[in-house]
């Protein structure tokens, strides 16, 4: 069984590291029901235990504690209501947080108290808000009334003023109006142009024709026709005016006149939360029934009607009265609002604390709903996963909870034996967390499996740096990341922003990437695409330049440049040739090393899961295969590097013919085994060695393909022939020592891992794996060439940027040069930062990610585990905040 080894060690605290996930235990808790709440609360604070749902088949509202959940849902709703009220009235929510009240365990009485308080507050706020709304409504009415009075009287004044001057030509204008409804034909109801004005031709005509002189003030008709022209006034939303006019016009068949004035200031309508722009309007219509109709229509369209007297003095009185009432109301409104704000301020001090408590309590009851009652219902039974190392901590938490509850019946914890796959818990810290996330994004490690996260911590930034090698860029990156790391507490808010979170959580990755880039930059001898001459170069350029277009050759001095690439290469005509060949070979060498590490990691896996067969018949042939082809290539690369191909012997003759092409060597190793061209030869016995290696590699293929499946089949047949059948796979889950009362959770029937032996299946899988490995060893090696390609691209790009933006300004002369340098530098720096560090960095990051996920991980990593998600208040509260 895979986990027996882990189990054997449980008693003596297993060591933990990031190399493997923690050893987990399935524990069972017998919690006396009166301590249950305290226990779960305490466990939630610790965040060490992942509860299993023991009531999978029970729907949400049939569980035991659903009423409590509902109670806290209700409380949360009340709090939400209070918070919206607080936000709406612009009261600041205190950040004050009563740690003590939140952290300490709360008795049921505390909760009742809190519930009562919240209820009372909600009641009061509800009442105050209702009263406030009432008052606001009255206030709104008065304000609208005031506006109507003001605007309408201005209308009247206007009209009567015009009337005196225009009374005489009225009959004449009637004919004109009926002809065209001209604008100036309506002295009676016209308004100055500054006010918005609508008039409808035929009505105007009717008026003018009928009346000739209509004394609005007196409300009688001057011309002697006794037509009862009345009017209604009111306020309506500005965007409805047109509709109102249109509908009235149609339904009264044009026998009306409407005029309106926009009320300048927005009116806050308590029914809507935002201020609304409104207009005051007046509608004239004659006849009782038409007026009724108009009234009905305007009301249906959402207008509020106000009575306005015809008499100017009375209107004035009314206005004054309205104003004074408005003042009074304003006073009351302010008082009321002050009381409300006061109440809300009181609430706001506690709000965050209450929210936290309520959310915690809700989480507690949600968790309690996962638990089972024992037979006589005085115990709750919990099951869950925890790290074996954390069991003592959990036990002490259980003690604490029992004490808190003042009970003397202790909670009993025991470990269960199980064949269930435990969740994977990798204990990370601030530093390793980011790297582990990279691994988890590919797949969570299976329990006990080697966790690539450990190696990723170094290989990831290193591979990145190979592609991003530039001392200057690396330095800037390091500075940024270092700032994030130094001020990480202060900058924690960055984690809340979705796009910045990536940088914040990955700050240690970026830091390492920066430092490693500085290192590789030093090796490549690149700082913002410039070379550094820190030591004396190993080459010397001839002192006489010879003039333009003449090729000069540097002469070699006696020593080699101590670190990295000689700066003399930097401007050499063949520098690209040199760096390309160098970086390409370096990529291959590092790639093979990286993959070898991946293959070797199969060994600890096989040892841990006790699968010797995986070492002998998987690991060994694989490593032989890889080494006999690509290991030999690496050897050849190193050999070629170490040989001085232009060395001359004493007689001054070249000792070697010419440097061989390694690519050809590899190709002809397959195409014409056993012979090496004279010009390609590197050392004696090369042909024989190549033949042996080739044969070795070829021999490994059937080894990988066939041996393991046949061994498995033989073992299986042995078991069958001994008569064991499949029983071995049925290990029952049971508690180690039977609990008092014998209440054992029944979880045995859950899916057993049946390892049905199907030879065809295994054979097919093995074929796929073998083909995949052989092909991959070629394609993956080629894939590491991206290290070279990206680093080339990076170097060229920064070179281009330098020569295109900054360099010209340095070559300038004259007074403008300082300004040009300033601008040139600005452009260069901004582009360096955004394109070279930002975008190039991102692309190098992605390529490094791919090299880890595809080239490295597929050599040994399953990544089929599930993540350990302990019940912790911290995560629950964080989620609720978002």
């Amino acid at each position, binding site marked *: 069984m895979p986990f027996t080894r882990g189990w054997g060690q449980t008693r003596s605290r297993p060591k933990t590291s990031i190399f493997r996930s923690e050893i987990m235990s399935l524990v069972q808790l017998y919690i006396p029901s009166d301590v249950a709440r305290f226990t779960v609360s305490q466990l939630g604070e610790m965040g060490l235990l992942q509860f299993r749902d023991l009531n999978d088949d029970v729907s949400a509202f049939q569980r035991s504690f659903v009423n409590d959940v509902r109670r806290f849902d209700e409380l949360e709703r009340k709090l939400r209501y209070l918070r919206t009220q607080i936000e709406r009235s612009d009261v600041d929510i205190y950040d004050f947080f009563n740690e003590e009240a939140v952290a300490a365990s709360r008795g049921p009485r505390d909760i009742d108290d809190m519930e009562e308080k919240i209820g009372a507050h909600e009641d009061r706020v509800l009442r105050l808000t209702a009263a406030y709304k009432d008052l606001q409504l009255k206030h709104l009415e008065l304000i609208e009334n005031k506006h109507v009075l003001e605007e309408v009287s201005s209308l009247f004044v206007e009209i009567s003023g015009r009337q005196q001057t225009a009374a005489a030509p009225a009959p004449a204008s009637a004919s004109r109006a009926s002809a065209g409804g001209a604008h100036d034909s309506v002295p009676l109801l016209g308004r100055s142009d500054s006010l918005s004005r609508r008039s409808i031709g035929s009505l105007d005509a009717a008026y003018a024709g009928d009346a000739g002189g209509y004394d609005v003030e007196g409300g009688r008709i001057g011309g002697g026709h006794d037509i009862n022209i009345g009017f209604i006034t009111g306020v309506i939303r500005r965007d*409805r005016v047109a509709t109102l006019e249109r509908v009235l016009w149609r339904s009264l068949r044009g026998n009306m006149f409407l005029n309106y004035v926009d009320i300048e200031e927005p009116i806050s309508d308590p029914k809507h939360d935002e201020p609304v722009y409104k207009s005051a309007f007046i509608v004239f219509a004659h006849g009782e029934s038409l007026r009724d109709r108009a009234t009905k229509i305007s009301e249906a369209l959402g207008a509020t009607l106000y009575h306005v007297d015809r008499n100017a003095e009375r209107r004035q009185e009314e206005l004054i009265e309205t104003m004074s009432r408005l003042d009074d109301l304003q006073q009351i409104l302010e008082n009321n609002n002050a009381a409300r704000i006061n109440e809300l301020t009181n609430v706001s001090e506690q709000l965050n604390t209450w929210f936290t408590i309520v959310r915690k309590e809700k989480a507690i009851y949600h968790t309690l709903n996962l638990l089972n009652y024992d037979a006589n219902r005085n115990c709750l039974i919990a099951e869950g996963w925890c790290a074996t190392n954390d069991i003592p901590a959990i036990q002490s938490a259980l003690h604490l909870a029992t004490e808190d509850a003042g009970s003397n019946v202790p909670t009993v914890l025991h470990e269960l034996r199980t064949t269930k796959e435990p969740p994977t818990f990798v204990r990370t810290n601030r530093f390793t967390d980011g790297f582990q996330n990279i691994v988890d994004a590919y797949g969570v490690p299976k329990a006990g499996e080697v966790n690539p996260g450990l190696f990723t911590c170094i290989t990831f930034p290193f591979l990145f740096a190979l592609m991003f090698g530039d001392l200057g860029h690396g330095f800037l990156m390091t500075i940024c990341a270092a700032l994030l790391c130094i001020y990480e507490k202060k900058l924690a808010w960055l984690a809340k922003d979705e796009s910045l979170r990536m940088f914040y959580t990955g700050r240690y990755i970026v830091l390492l990437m920066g430092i490693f880039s500085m290192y590789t930059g030093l090796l490549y001898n690149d700082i913002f695409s410039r070379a550094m001459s820190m030591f004396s170069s190993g080459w010397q350029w001839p002192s006489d330049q010879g003039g333009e277009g003449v090729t000069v050759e540097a002469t070699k001095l006696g020593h080699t440049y101590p670190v990295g690439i000689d700066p003399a290469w930097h401007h050499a005509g063949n520098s690209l040739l040199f760096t390309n060949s160098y970086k390409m070979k370096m990529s291959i060498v590092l790639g093979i090393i990286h993959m070898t590490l991946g293959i070797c990691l199969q060994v600890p896996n096989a040892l841990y899961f006790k699968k010797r067969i995986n070492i002998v018949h998987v690991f060994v042939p694989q490593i032989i295969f890889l080494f006999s082809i690509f290991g030999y290539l690496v050897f050849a690369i190193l050999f070629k590097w170490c040989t001085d191909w232009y060395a001359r012997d004493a007689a001054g003759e070249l000792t070697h013919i010419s440097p061989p092409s390694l690519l050809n060597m590899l190709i002809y190793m397959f195409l014409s085994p056993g012979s090496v061209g004279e010009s390609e030869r590197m050392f004696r016995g090369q042909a024989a060695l190549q033949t042996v290696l080739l044969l070795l590699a070829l021999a490994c293929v059937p080894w990988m393909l066939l041996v393991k499946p046949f061994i498995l089949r033989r073992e299986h047949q042995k078991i069958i022939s001994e008569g064991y059948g499949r029983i071995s796979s049925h290990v029952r889950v049971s508690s180690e020592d039977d609990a008092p009362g014998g209440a054992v959770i029944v979880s045995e029937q859950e899916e057993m891992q049946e390892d049905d032996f199907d030879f065809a299946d295994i054979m097919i899988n093995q074929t796929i794996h073998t083909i995949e490995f052989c092909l991959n060893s070629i394609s993956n090696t080629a894939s590491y060439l991206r290290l070279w390609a990206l680093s080339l691209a990076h170097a060229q790009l920064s070179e281009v940027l330098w020569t295109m933006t900054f360099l010209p300004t340095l070559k300038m002369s004259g007074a403008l040069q300082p300004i040009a340098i300033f601008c040139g530098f600005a452009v260069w720096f901004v582009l360096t930062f955004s394109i070279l560090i930002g975008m190039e960095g991102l692309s190098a990051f992605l390529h490094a990610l791919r090299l880890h996920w595809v080239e490295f991980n597929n050599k040994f990593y399953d990544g089929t585990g599930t993540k350990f998600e302990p019940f912790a208040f911290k995560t629950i509260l964080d989620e609720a905040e978002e």
Partner: protein
Amino acid sequence: MKEIYFNADAGYLEGVVRGYRDGLITAPQYMNLTQCETMDDLKLQLATTDYAPFLQNEPSPISTSTLSARCTDALVAEFQYLQQNSAEPVSRFLEYITYGYMIDNVILLITGTLHERDTHDLLEKCHPLGFFDTMPALCVATNVQDLYNTVMVDSPLAGYFRECLSAEDLNELNIEIIRNTLYKAYLEDFYSYCQSCGEPTSSIMAELLKFESDRRTVNITINSFGTELSKDDRAKLYPRLGNMYPEAQIRLARADDMDQVKSILEQYGDYKRMILSANMNASSDSAGGSDMSLEDIFFANEVQLNKDAFEQQFHFGVFYSWLRLKEQEIRNIVWIAECISQQQKDKVNKYTPIY
């Protein structure tokens, strides 16, 4: 060719609406809903659905009417999101969908006014998707002429109203006639609009609208039994489209009772299967009993058709179908809620399942 450009105009909306469709309540969730004992349980269960944001701030003893209102709010919010993000030609299509609600609102207001109900109450009962500017003014209309001239003339429904103008004054029967005439004109117009949208919208919408038309035809027939509506008038109300147009419509116009309707329906394969599968109670001749179940059959069939509309891409039918399915879902929730609040648990399973 159209498919190439489809996503430029409607791709986002189609994605959204398919997302909405996936939010519809599924069979296991219905199972949970039907097992609820109280309205609070129901609220708790609905908290895992798309309705959660609309229900979570309701104080706890929740009534069926609030539940229904909040659910409709959810529907309206989603539809309005679609409308706000739409451009031609989707916006036009969505507008067409709202006309149906406008007709319902108009009829509601006229009927309400006829019974002298308070205008503001009536306005609150109107479906928010069917609001148009001049709608509130309907309350003053006392005859059809008036109605048209005052209010309808510049509403989108004006064109549909033309055929109603012959009716003289407003009474119960006339209002029903107006409703059906309007709906008939609407369906025909919508149908011809969909035909102009090109494949595959036209064929998919044709199927849906034909079904709708058939359903209305049958409903009109059944509802006109025992009223003073003459058979000729009845025939005039049938939409001039559908699977049963024109042969069966002529016969339906002459039908006198449920049995005749059934026998006419049975000549159509789809409807025959529908009726058989629901094994209508032959003994209940009374229009009321079998009418009810016929409606349910139609609902079930409609659901199936609307689900089928999602099987194809690059057409507007999904918007229509999603709205219909969502409406059906709200009807289901309200039905379940009513059963729970009235303690009629034995009838709770008579909802129309969707997914």
